[in-house]
């Protein structure tokens, strides 16, 4: 199931890489050609359903593009996926069902916002964990600073050399 998309992906990745190499550190998803994204003929008549389709499209990755959602992409595959999403919505699927349908067919790679799972725990919990651990460290630092000598405890005693210098300075 995943062999063909993977091969296509690699080809597209190489193409994207060439564009990228030319681009230096410039931002922006650079599919080749103009960005035309969602087309008028694909859109649903019912504005409410269409709004749902647009919102879902922004959560889904154009599989052959570099980090582009299917709503923005002008690749053929993105168009196919946009139509597929609208077909599922017309068939009465809920948003969650549409996403599940696409994940079943294309794998989790299609989701731009990874689901919370064991494998993705580090991704989702990393930020809060950093904040928590950093917060504890910061709080301890601030507490110690309040008592004086934040970074290496109380002022360390002078060394012999420093004592000698002070003695010299005092004599002058």
């Amino acid at each position: 199931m995943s062999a063909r998309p993977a091969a296509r992906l690699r080809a597209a990745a190489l193409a994207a890489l060439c564009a990228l190499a030319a681009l230096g550190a410039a931002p922006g998803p650079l599919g080749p050609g103009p960005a035309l994204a969602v087309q008028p003929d694909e859109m649903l008549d019912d504005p409410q359903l269409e709004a749902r389709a647009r919102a879902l499209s922004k959560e889904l990755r154009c599989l052959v593009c570099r980090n582009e959602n299917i709503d923005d992409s002008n690749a053929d595959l993105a168009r196919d996926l946009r139509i597929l999403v609208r077909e599922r919505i017309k068939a009465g699927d809920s948003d969650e069902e549409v996403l599940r349908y696409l994940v079943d067919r294309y794998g989790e790679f299609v989701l731009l916002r990874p689901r919370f799972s064991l494998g993705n725990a580090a991704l989702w919990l990393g930020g809060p964990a950093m904040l928590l651990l950093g917060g504890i460290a910061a709080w301890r630092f601030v507490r110690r600073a309040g008592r004086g000598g934040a970074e290496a405890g109380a002022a360390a005693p002078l060394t012999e050399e420093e004592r000698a210098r002070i003695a010299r300075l005092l004599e002058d």
Partner: protein
Amino acid sequence: MIVEIGHFALILAFMVSIVQATAPMIGASRGWADWMRVAEPAAALCWALTATSFAALTWAFVNSDFSVKLAAEHSNTLQPLLYRVTGVWGNHEGSLLLWTLILTLYGAMVAAFGGALPPTLKARTLAVQGLIGAAFFAFMLFTSNPFERLPNPPLDGADLNPLLQDPGLAFHPPFLYLGYVGLSMSYSFAVAALIEGRVDAAWARWVRPWTLAAWTALTVGIALGSYWAYYELGWGGWWFWDPVENASFMPWLAATALLHSAIVVEKRDTLKSWTILLAILAFTLSLMGTFIVRSGLLTSVHAFASDPTRGVFVLAMLAAASGGALALYAWRAPQLRAGGVFAPVSRESALVLNNLLLAAAAGVVLLGTLMPMIREYWDGARISVGAPFFELAFTPFMVALAIILPIGAALPWKRGRLGRTARRMAPALALALAAAALVWALQTGRSALGPVGVGLGTWLIAGALAEQLERARLGRAPAAETLRRLRNLPRADWGKALAHAGLGLSFIGVSAVTAWEAELIRTARPGDSLELSGYVFVFDDVRQVPGPNYVARQGVFRVFEGGVETARLTPEKRVYTVQRMPTTEAAIDMGLARDLYVVLGDPQDDGSWAVRIYVKPLVNWIWIGALVMALAGLVSLSDRRYRVGAAARRPAPAAVAGAAE
């Protein structure tokens, strides 16, 4: 011939940078003054050689010397002069040459203007800078030589990628590199200080201007890139959380944190070891940005493995630069002693909180950017981390930052009272709440994003203003006295107020355009009129227009507001003749209140055209805010204390005993 001179100059620059990296370092540890003094002429010479090399490559591009492989692949005789020049850095090899040019420029500037620096610190800083230079020169000479010749030069070149033929993007890389490479200065200073075993207020004062300059350039670079994406990519997005964007955003977050923590070191002689660590991390993130952009790791671990030479080289450089510095840090940092004592409620604590939030936010961006690669390498799972993740995981940190910022910035050093500062900020808070309430009432029932964003932005701007006015004793002193005080406030304080207000402007822009953007996508024929958000767009015509190196079909739209014609917009679909590459050029009517954004799509079978129209409220505030922040950096840089120079180190050396050998 000229090209060979450029190549030769590059080789010489490599040699000189090796001398710059070694002799001053040995001299500083042995106390040999003449060895230390080598650093200055070496840094200047290294810059001169790199500039020669860069000039030679530019010559090859401008004169369309297609026997140079790089020029043949990225330039074209039809290309306008501007893009023949900017084409020099519109590719891998040339952008590396630009990188080293800026690196050596910073080195030469330290040599020229660092007169007040203690000789050993200056020698060591320049030596570390030389070491970075040597690594980059080696990278270029051995894996990415920009001067490679073609045995059979083509008659005409292959043209620069059309998307890059744009003034916004032409000047995006130089600014970005000024920022990236500027962070190498903070890094070199940090490593030199670790070797010296001495970090004090004077050190922080020397590092700060360089960090500030780097931060300012990075701010401009990111804003330019974002603006380019907005008008060039054709659907009016301004930030995509693309790994390449994140690669520039992470160093910016780290540099912002560093800027703030260095203030604490300078004013209060504490938070030293964290500041050193941040300086190392900020440059590591810059290098990592280069690495993930250059190595191919972005697209897939497999793409990286298929052509690993360059990637492995940058990875080795990254490992050496960060690993070496961190090892040195682990060894020396515990010996750094803090001076300042401060209470939990104080400016110091507020800045610690600022650093905590900025560092965690940078961490989230880093995790999101690297996680797809980590997962693929770890258990083979292919996941995507895109905008929806970052919007959810990153935004809370910025909201928290905006809430605490005006209070924290107004707290006194050492010991403050929250109630007292909050009372001083009460007018700003009232204004912010009023703005949020007004927006809430006006928009009736849409998402909370608009009111919250506008409220926070107003809070930031009014808070910055309130602090300055408070310091000028507005209302408590005669007006003349207030004016005199306002004039006499240090430039650095004006820089601070401006920067915070600029952030507020960006906040308002981001939330307004996200919450209230209107969009119309449909097919239309010439003669049709379309209505969106109170504007009527009359689609008049589609005509053929020739360009210098492309042909275009141009749509003509007239825009009416309340029956009055307010704009005439001509979006284009271009085909660049050499590369046969089609692009869309959106037409934008810019304004402070809103942008009108029209894109011409494909012709349909029935003779109509696909048309996309957007009304984007306050979108320009995003970049105006960024420019105000950059301006704030310049104002702050012009502060008297940097011009006068920090000649006198604190008399009592807070040195680590025995660390200087």
